[in-house]
């Protein structure tokens, strides 16, 4: 976090920092951190630490990162710089009277040193010596050039060596070329050679004593992220649900009780004037509906109403030809998982029709529905349906479009057009399209229509009352809103909680 300041270990000791600053004071135009290291006789990494500490103090120094190539001794190279080359060590180990070869070979530098010293002609081997092969010096003194060269490099004077020599030493794994990241250090705008100790945080004591006035505070690193608050998170789909609820409430719509997943075929299909013979509506298809084996049948219906529904299906009436088929109560009784929340709308409209005097209503619901269909990236066996219903005298198709326009405007969608469509329980039926600026085309955003008289009149609603309705899924706009392509990444137990933690608040109109 910002308060964590540099994020590096403990601050370099003040003495070193001040030495560095004094050094910097003397040079014009700045200096390289490697030179500082050489001058102060400390390791370059220590100077790097000091530079970072100084940076944290504000504008005392200003720096520029550099990288340069540089020759460095390997572990073995350092050993040689200290103790001499293997061949020199071998040479020095041999007394004037010579040394048995097998004894020499046991020395740590024995093998390498022996062959190098041999090829340098510093020593000779007397194979025929009594008591086994023996090694003798051939010269009085030697010059250990390898050690000399390595010592030059160690002193930072590798430039004095020829490239060929360096390559040779590299081949012997005594030297390596490394890239060094260093700093070009110049005086900063508030340069000073003395360090005032900086405070990390304001304390209650400082406030009480007023000492904060004299203190310098370590600057914050505003580039770092803060610490995540310890909190819970709402699920994005539920956040969107909340917004849709809000929109309906703002528009004066009352929430329907949709807490009944199990529904009878009667309310799910028949009451809506959906045929029992699965001829037209996909939802009625056996294959798309989850039927219930236990409790298999519903056992209670409003009898008068049920008779009227039976009649309008099998014989017609209310100005309708009907579907002319043998309507069976056995089918209507079958329990299922509701395939749409319109089953609840039907219950509510029936209830409304039982009032002594009709009063206009606006209803909405957002709840789960179930389809036994093939699952893919955008289809699950359960999803949330959003539904709006308005019942009043004299509502027109133009009114439906007007309400849809208001509703979608609240979602930030203003460009709408309507396509004639087919839905077995609404007539007219319209698909709602909105212009997608990104895709540069019209995309379907919902379905709507005017409920059929064959649905409304048997309920007992007055003749002049029209009921307009529309629906859409909750998942689709949410997937678009949060940029999710696979519905399984949004709904169900497989969602990544990180996605839930990270999802922003939902404002549908922005």
């Amino acid at each position: 976090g910002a308060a964590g300041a540099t994020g590096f270990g403990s601050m370099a000791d003040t003495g070193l920092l001040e030495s560095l600053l004094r050094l910097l004071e003397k040079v014009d135009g700045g200096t390289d951190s490697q030179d500082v290291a050489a001058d102060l006789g400390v390791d370059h990494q220590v100077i790097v630490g000091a530079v970072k500490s100084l940076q944290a103090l504000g504008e005392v120094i200003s720096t520029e990162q550099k990288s340069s190539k540089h020759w460095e001794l390997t572990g073995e190279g350092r050993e040689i710089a200290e103790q001499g080359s293997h061949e020199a060590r071998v040479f020095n180990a041999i007394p004037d009277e010579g040394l048995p070869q097998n004894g020499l070979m046991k020395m740590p530098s024995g093998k390498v040193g022996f062959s190098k010293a041999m090829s340098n002609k510093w020593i000779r081997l007397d194979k025929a010596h009594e008591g086994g092969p023996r090694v003798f010096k051939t010269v009085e003194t030697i010059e250990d050039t390898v050690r000399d060269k390595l010592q030059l490099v160690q002193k930072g004077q590798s430039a004095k060596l020829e490239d060929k020599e360096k390559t040779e030493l590299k081949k012997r794994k005594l030297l390596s070329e490394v890239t060094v990241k260093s700093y070009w250090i110049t005086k900063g705008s508030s340069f000073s050679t003395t360090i005032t100790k900086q405070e990390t945080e304001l304390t209650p004591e400082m406030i009480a004593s007023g000492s904060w006035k004299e203190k310098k505070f370590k600057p914050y690193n505003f580039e770092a992220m803060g610490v995540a608050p310890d909190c819970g998170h709402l699920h994005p789909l539920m956040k969107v649900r909340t917004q849709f609820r809000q929109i309906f409430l703002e528009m004066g719509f009352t929430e329907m009780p949709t807490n009944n997943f199990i529904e009878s075929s009667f309310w799910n299909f028949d009451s809506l004037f959906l045929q029992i013979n699965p001829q037209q509506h996909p939802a009625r298809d056996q294959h798309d509906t989850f039927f219930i084996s236990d409790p298999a049948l519903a056992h209670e219906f409003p009898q008068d109403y049920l008779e009227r529904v039976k009649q309008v299906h099998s014989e017609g009436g209310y100005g309708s030809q009907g579907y002319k088929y043998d309507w069976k109560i056995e089918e209507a009784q079958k329990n299922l998982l509701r395939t749409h929340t319109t089953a609840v709308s039907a219950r509510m409209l029936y209830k409304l029709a039982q009032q002594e005097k009709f009063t206009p209503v606006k209803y909405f619901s957002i709840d789960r529905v179930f389809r036994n269909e093939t699952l893919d990236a955008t289809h699950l066996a359960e999803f949330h349906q959003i539904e709006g219903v308005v019942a009043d005298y004299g509502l027109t198709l133009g009114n439906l479009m007007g309400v849809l326009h208001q509703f979608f405007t609240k979602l930030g969608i203003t460009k709408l057009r309507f396509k004639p469509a087919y839905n077995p329980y609404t007539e007219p039926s319209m698909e709602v399209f909105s212009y997608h600026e990104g895709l540069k085309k019209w995309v379907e955003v919902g379905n709507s229509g005017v409920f059929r008289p064959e649905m409304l009149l048997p309920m007992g609603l007055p003749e002049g009352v029209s009921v307009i309705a529309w629906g859409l899924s909750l998942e689709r706009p949410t997937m678009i809103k949060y940029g999710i392509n696979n519905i399984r990444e949004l709904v169900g137990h497989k969602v990544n909680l990180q996605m839930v933690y990270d999802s922003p608040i939902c404002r549908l109109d922005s």
Partner: protein
Amino acid sequence: MPTVSVKRDLLFEALGQKYTDEEFDELCFEFGLELDEITSEKEILSREQGDEKAEGASDVVLYKIDVPANRYDLLCLEGLVRGLQVFKEKLEAPRYKRVSPADGGEPQRLVITEETASVRPHAVAAVLRNITFTQERYESFIELQEKLHQNICRKRTLVAIGTHDLDTISGPFTYTAKPPGDIRFKPLNQSKEYTAAELISHYKTDSHLRHYLHIIENEPLYPIIYDNNGIVLSMPPVINAKNYSMLLNMRNGFCVCLQAKITLDMIVTMFSEYCDEPFTVEEAEVVYPDGRLCVYPELAYRTETLSGDFINKRVGINESAESIAQLLTRMCLRSEVSGEGDLIQVEIPPTRADVIHACDIMEDAAIAYGFNNIIRSTPRTYTVANQLPLNKLTELLRQDLTAAGFTEALTFALCSQEDIADKLRKNIVETRAVHISNPKTAEFQVVRTCLLPGLLKTLAANRKMPLPLKLFEISDVVLKDETKDVGARNNRRLCAVYYNKSPGFEVIHGLLDRVMQLLDVKPGRNQGYHIQAAEDSTFFPGRCAEIFSCGKSIGHLGVLHPDVISRSELTMPCSAIDMDIEPFL
């Protein structure tokens, strides 16, 4: 929604006009169709079977057009063109006429015997006289039959269509039913004779026909149609006989449909266009087992009378009766102003079986007017909004549960029996679960009876997340309940889990205290809430308590049983709370 595939150039030729793809798409949109895809046989083949197979296939441009599920009159090129041409006022809707045989000849007759009672005791028939097919027309004819079979005929279970070359057979025809062993004929596309029983086993491996075998397979008698000489015409709904089916070069067609008059009307209205005398269909007589004689096709026209005011008021427009009559005429509903007030007489042709109410006529007027020309207006319906108290409580609690540091999960309402029983160490019988009769997989066997399985699965899927994991869900479970009309009810529950290296019972207990504080219920034995040691097989013995509020048990909390943890593919201890929130409404 059925999709009709037509050759673009053929379509434009028939429409007498060329369109760009965009223009045609617009026309479809306005008329209630959808230009779903622009493709070619080659493209389809290459997509489905790879480029190699597509080599040499036709690259003639095909339009795939989605047609509303109730518009059987738009399921072929002929119908689509007719509908669009009338809509564009380039053509007057034809009148379909049933005619008697020329030269006073006897009509063709189909006699239905009483044996059919056990299978499909209805059939209708008609004759397409002096018809001229081309390759394209013939293909369209076959495709329409297939489309009708798939849609209105519900994969042949409701209706079966047979079409035959009348010049190769001779009436009267008999529609009867016989034991499968007694039926022998040479079926379409086969070179030898089979008995019906042999055919059934032969077609078991036919990718197309095997889907229709179940309709008659287990019947003692199979439906069969013979001509006067005992020649088999067809064994509906499975197959026609060879040699007697309608062919490209035949001139007179005999159409038989089991069950539905609408289907027969649809076939003959669409293709009578190609008869020497277009749009006429020669009648056929059908004699029923009870001696009743009916003449088909019906080709019934029906007249409805409605007022211009009705249309105006329902659509939200203000048009004269004359102009509304004109709009309807454009939808193949020939209409006239009757002269009485603003009454309009609307004639419903046999092709428009979808028109069953004045509202269907109203919709057609609105389509012809143009949905997008209708002025959008806000209804003046004044209402005061109310939230459902249960949802209001849920919304408020969800907010505060996240404030308490718990993250909301959203899990499925459907699950397996194992999820709510074995995995929680419960007996399925005791769960009061609602069972699904037709689940495709085990994931959809029951409706959840508690929220815990979903939360445990969410934990399992997120084991890599930093601990502790604190999750909650407030949602519905479903329980059997005899007192409800459907025998089951939803129950809104609150469930939360704490998953960490230590069980954290105190965390879950603290959450209960917080929830009760939010619900304004004080700790206490009588009017308040308290918890009390309990045994529950889902929880670790001695680490489970029952929650009581105002003396009523509302749920449990505790440390989950180690077996529940491991059966959920989890490794850490976990404590949970599961409670009913409905008592707090």
